[in-house]
């Protein structure tokens, strides 16, 4: 166990190093310049562009830029080129904004997909099964932004309530209960939209896992010995069907930082995804690279956690 953890840790550090090098190279070798050194603005003289490049260390060779960047990152000194704000502070603020969206979305996904998937598996071929299959494929196929527009137009025109942003703009002085409920309301649509794809995919996955397990011999044995059907489905079958999802649980961790660019832009949600996307457009290298690095760390931690979890729940792989 300890050896496994140690080995895995070393491996992950090495991976992280390569990720940092590759992402640094990709971003620097991609065409395009930070908007501060935009050569198409007639007001920008070559001397000014030069001064910006010097300030941003862009005039140095790539390996020096790499060292400088990660030195600043680890000492927490990295600042965004856009507004000279500390990158870590910016990311932390946006992370706090994206977190509720992520949590509600994830909880919705996981709480809704299991009942739907299990039910569809148990009543295989029923109207419910066919209906849920249709809805699932429909939700997978419909483009998220389009669905978002439809929902917004529907809610705004029929219910006459605001849905944009993290809270109602200009609400002024209202009671704390109103404030909290207002926040929850604003979470609702974007997290439903964020969850639809997940629910559709995960419920299909649950269904097929359940079907596979239900076909096993031990299930037949359980049924044959006269256990009530619920006992068979929910105790014997479900437990075994859950195994693969343990791994998935670790892998949702990176979703924390990714956020959803499209949903956040449509709903004016001041989250991580939107910040990263805008940073890419403006070639704000410090922000892009830091987000990239943190998400790489989270992916690695996520895989590490799922490895551990798997070892805990499935004795077969405990070697």
């Amino acid at each position, binding site marked *: 166990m300890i050896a496994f953890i140690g080995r895995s840790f070393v491996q992950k550090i090495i991976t992280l190093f390569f990720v940092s090098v590759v992402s640094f190279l990709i971003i620097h070798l991609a065409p395009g310049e930070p908007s*501060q050194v935009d050569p198409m603005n007639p*007001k920008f003289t070559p001397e000014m562009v030069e001064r910006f490049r010097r300030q941003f260390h862009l005039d140095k060779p790539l390996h020096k830029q790499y060292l400088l960047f990660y030195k600043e990152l680890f000492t927490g000194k990295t600042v965004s080129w856009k507004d000279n704000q500390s990158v870590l502070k910016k990311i932390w603020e946006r992370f706090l904004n994206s977190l509720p969206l992520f949590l509600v979305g994830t909880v919705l996904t996981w709480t809704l997909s299991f009942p739907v998937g299990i039910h569809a598996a148990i009543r295989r071929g029923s109207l419910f099964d066919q209906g849920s299959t249709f809805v699932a494929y429909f939700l997978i196929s419909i483009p998220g932004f389009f669905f978002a527009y439809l929902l917004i137009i529907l809610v705004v025109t029929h219910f006459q309530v605001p849905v944009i942003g993290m809270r109602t703009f*200009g609400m002024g002085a209202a009671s704390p209960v109103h404030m909290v409920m207002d926040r929850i309301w604003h979470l609702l649509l974007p997290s439903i939209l964020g969850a639809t794809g997940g629910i559709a995919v995960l419920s299909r996955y649950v269904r097929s896992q359940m079907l596979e397990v239900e076909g096993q011999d031990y299930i037949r044995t359980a049924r044959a010995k006269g256990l009530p059907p619920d006992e068979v489905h929910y105790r014997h079958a479900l437990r075994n069907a859950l195994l693969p999802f343990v791994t998935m649980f670790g892998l949702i961790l990176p979703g924390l930082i990714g956020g959803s660019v499209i949903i956040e832009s449509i709903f004016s949600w001041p989250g991580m995804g939107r910040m990263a996307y805008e940073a890419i457009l403006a070639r704000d290298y410090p922000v892009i690279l830091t987000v990239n690095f943190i998400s790489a760390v989270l992916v690695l931690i996520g895989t590490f956690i799922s490895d551990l979890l798997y070892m805990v729940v499935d004795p077969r792989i405990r070697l």
Partner: protein
Amino acid sequence: MTIKRLLIFAPLVLSIILLQSYFWVPTYEQQTRGNPDRLTTYVTASTGDASLLNPILSADSASSEIAAQVFEGLIDRDENLQFRGRVAAGWKIYAEAYFYVSPHMPPAGIDTADPQAVADLIRSAKTSKAPMDPQLRTTLDRISDITVLPPHGFTATRKAMDGRTPSTTPDIHFTVAAPARIKLRLNEVDQNLFDRLQHLLGDTYFKSFESNRFLQSDLPLPADRLAAYAHDILPATEQNPVIVFHLRPGVQFHDGHLLEADDVRFTYAAIMDPSNLSPRTSDYEPVKTVEVIDPLTVRIVYKRLYSPAIGTWQMGILPEHLLNREALRQEALARGLDPESFSVRDSNFNRRPVGCGPFRFREWQSDQYITLDRFEEYWEGPPNYRTFAYRIIPNVLTQEMEFYAGTVDSYSVQPFQVARLRDDPRFQNFSGLAFGYTYIGYNMRREPFNDWRVRLALGMAIDVDKIIAYVLHGQGERITGPFPKQTDFYDNTILPVPYDPQGALQLLEEAGWKRNAQGWLEKNGRRLSFTLITNSGNDIRKSILTIAQDAWKQIGIDVSTDLLEWSVFIQERVNKLDFDAIVLGWSMGIDPDLYQIWHSSQTNPNQLNFVAFKNQAADDLIIKIRQEYNHQKQVADSHRLHAIIAEEQPYTFLYVGKWTAVLDKRIVIKTIDTEGQTVFERIRPTQTGNFMFYFNKWIKLPDVPVFNAEG
């Protein structure tokens, strides 16, 4: 079965918690009608967030829009785009000119080179009633004062210009024994001053001044290099335009501190401070000195004639007391940062600015909103709105929904929506022309674009009116030249290139291009073929690409097209001058200075005259326009330049886009007339289409007002 129950109840409970929140949310009705504050708040939306709320540092439109409300410049543009005083109550432009009196060469007409005698010569010419060249007479009339400055010695230091990197080049020290100099004070700038004076002093009087005779260098230099340095250190003639601004007394910053001349000087110094990395330095490079005469007077002397300089004083004035060395040092120490490297760029001032504009900063929630409160002590009286809110809504459709719902007061209409929203009785609408235009540019270094007939023929083959009608949904106008169409620099008498494919074929035939058996145009056995490129991500340019390709194919030109990602397009093709023809657009300022886009010296890689337009007459006019301080003369020269460019057709000028904005109909202009009565008027745009011009007088009424017919 607990698991089963859990699986059913958990999602149910969660859904109920989430859905019931609907009943607690204020409806739009409650927000817009039930909230009295809403009527005194103006809410606008932007797709992007601001970056730095500091006019000297930001270059993005969101930051500039906020800075325009929080900060105020010395001057701005009035309804007719002429300058008017803001923080400056008034200003005066005059010039100080100098020339060295060569002791070795007397001017024409007298036999002594004594400086007093030269000065007297000019004085007597000025008072003389004898008939003379009328141009010389005008110039002499402008001279208000003549003084002789005695000879003086000084030392000067210059970097050796020998191609090594600046840090390793040695300094060269010069000992200068400057001869006497005559100083002329002119009551207005005259770019022909010295040419005209040569009528009086002799045709080569200034040219024959040998500055290298008056200095010595500590390093041995070849004669031509010495002459170059000498010319730089002791220029024979010099004319320094001077602007004196008289500040309005009693103008306050939002923290109550009085705005004084020191703040103006500080703003200039902050822009020029290299550690602040201001993107505006090039505007202020021609400034020689900024002197504080008294707390309400600033005198700005320029190194050379550069008329766009006046417009640069629209820059918002920064409060010196909050950003000077000492204030920055305090802030750096308080935040635990290194005070040495801490610049204005790092200061938190840029996130909570203090200016002297009509609105004071209240709050900025990144990527959500920025709110401003009106400044009660604003020198022109506080605005009618109490609050200015700037919401950041990155998606245009959600902006539109919020506008319909009443939580945003204005909406910039997309071209395809104009026909629908213009006639909507709920809104008032405004439209106008953009500052800028879209064009097809030809690389004139390459065949066949070096022939003006080919360029003109290519333009004649495209039906621009149809592009405007179908691609832009009618939201554009034709444009014929390089100036913004709503300024008077643009000559409206110049007619656009007509749509005439037959005429185009004739012109091409004159240029030697004839149709071959397959219908392609050919010259000396070579087919007329080239590639038209533009950047991806702009649907309108993409459509133009297709339309132009098709139109040119119809007259037998083999055109291929390509769409490139913006940065590849700019860096690899435009900057490296590697293209045949491009579809691109310029956005313009009001000033008629076209040096960077059209002067023949700007045709190198990475410069903006990438089509390689070279025309001596145009070059002369471009220089003349940027040195001319008289608006009428600038207009006349601009019209001449416009005609030359329209004739040469280095671009096929396509169109200038039209914007339309819709506004809640309840927003009106509220003023108090001389008898103390409150008067409501409909919002009226200025001649150039700017409907926000009277923004400080706007207010929202509870109900849609009904105006008299004449209103």
